């Protein structure tokens, strides 16, 4: 048992060095849920244009390429936000309000929405892997993943984004909010329960 304890201690000690990878992967999973729906909407919109498409699949391809581009861009930005957060101290409520920018609102919203959608994807994937038939298993896994990995990432984004000019994040805000909304709407099963 001793080596298990040692390994546990070692991993716990080095946690700040690798936990961010899991937080980023959760966001990537959730972003893909939103981007996939965005691709569908883009394809419909493109197919409705009165353009004489030379190939009926062209609107689908264009939509997929656009959504992939948005997804990759958001992935790069997510890495950047994680990097800048790591160097920042955590700020309190008052200080946060004083230095709040558009980015300070939109990035935590995006991070939380995609983390939730990603967590549910992981929970159901894990429950399927285990092969259990319990209803509670995905919910239990989701809570554990959220508590151990997702929530610390969301809090980091809310508390540790560095101060910026008020309008910082204006350009990216529509994409962030759109993908957040789509990830929440289509990445979680709760809407069917309401």
């Amino acid at each position, binding site marked *: 048992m001793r080596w298990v304890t040692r390994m546990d201690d070692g991993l716990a000690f080095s946690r700040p060095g690798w936990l961010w990878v899991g937080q980023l992967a959760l966001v990537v999973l959730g972003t893909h849920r939103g981007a996939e729906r965005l691709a*569908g909407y883009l*394809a419909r919109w493109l197919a409705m244009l009165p353009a004489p498409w030379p190939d009926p699949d062209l609107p689908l391809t264009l*939509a997929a390429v656009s959504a992939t581009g948005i997804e990759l861009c958001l992935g790069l930005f997510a890495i950047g936000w994680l990097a800048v957060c790591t160097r920042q101290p955590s700020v309190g409520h008052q200080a946060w309000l004083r230095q709040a920018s558009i980015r300070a609102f939109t990035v935590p919203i995006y991070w939380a929405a995609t983390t939730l959608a990603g967590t549910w994807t992981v929970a159901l994937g894990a429950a399927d892997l285990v092969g259990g038939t319990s209803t509670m298993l995905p919910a239990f896994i989701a809570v554990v993943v959220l508590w151990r990995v997702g929530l610390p990432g969301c809090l980091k984004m809310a508390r540790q984004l560095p101060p910026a000019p008020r309008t910082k994040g204006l350009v990216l805000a529509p994409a962030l909010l759109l993908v957040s909304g789509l990830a929440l709407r289509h990445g979680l099963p709760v809407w069917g329960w309401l």
Partner: protein
Amino acid sequence: MRRGGLLDAGIVLGILVLAAGSTPVGALGVWGIDALRGVERPMPQLVGFFSFSTRSHLTAAVLLPVRAPSDSPLPGALEVAVERVVRTSGPPQHYSTPEAAVEGLRQSWHEDHDLALERWALGRDVVERAASRARSAGSSDPTRWVELRRWLPAHTAAEGDRLVQGPRALATVLELAWPIQAPHHVTSGYGWRIHPTLGTKRFHNGIDLGVPIGTTVFAAQSGRIAVVGENAVSGRFVVIDHDHDVRTAYCHLDQANVTAGEHVERGAPIGASGNSGRSTGPHLHFMVRLAGETLDPHPLRPEDDQTSPGALHGPPVP
């Protein structure tokens, strides 16, 4: 595990495996790591991770030419719909080719059609687990797709939308009957046009069938009357919900003989055509919606040519 290091590492590892296998960013990350390690692999197909909504593929699938259904236990329209869906957007992952997928469904077809289609699309184990979860949560009909999909991982649910809901919706569309039996001609097609009364470029979301006022209008498919209404644009109109996200609408009616909530059979008379609303002459505006988006109904028009897409419509309405 006093400090949870092993637990957190296990969780992160699991998340990474899922993200690497099911997202473009993850695939690119794996490819990049392999490249750094000197392992040469072709660049991953990033756009291949998008399954889209069912509708985009179905719209293309509606327009494919019909091949006569072979001797098969599957209902004709469903077989054609399944074949079109797997041809346009790929077979289930446990089948290597579209042909093998269609043959697989023929082999596994049984009386519980929903279950047969779900197992074919997603695999028996996945469906059983999700149904069990739904059953435990108190669902009275756990194998119904809308119930089952809540208990599936998001990417599996999306795959099911494509392969379970998609063929059902497409089969419903392919079986639509033409709403007018009397001789008529198409006075305005689907798509962009100069609006006859407004003179501006507008998208015409249905097809106009020129018929005299009072011509009987028939239900294109069985379903529930969703709306019976009247407004300044569409005049008096009826909307029928045919399930599987398929709706038809009949506008500019002179009278509607049905009420909202009523069930109608395919080919049942639902009203009489007219000239109500914004209209330049007596006609029926017929509209088909699939997954919330309109389709061009013209390819569904029955023709003498048995290879046309209208060939599957079954018997004409009475």
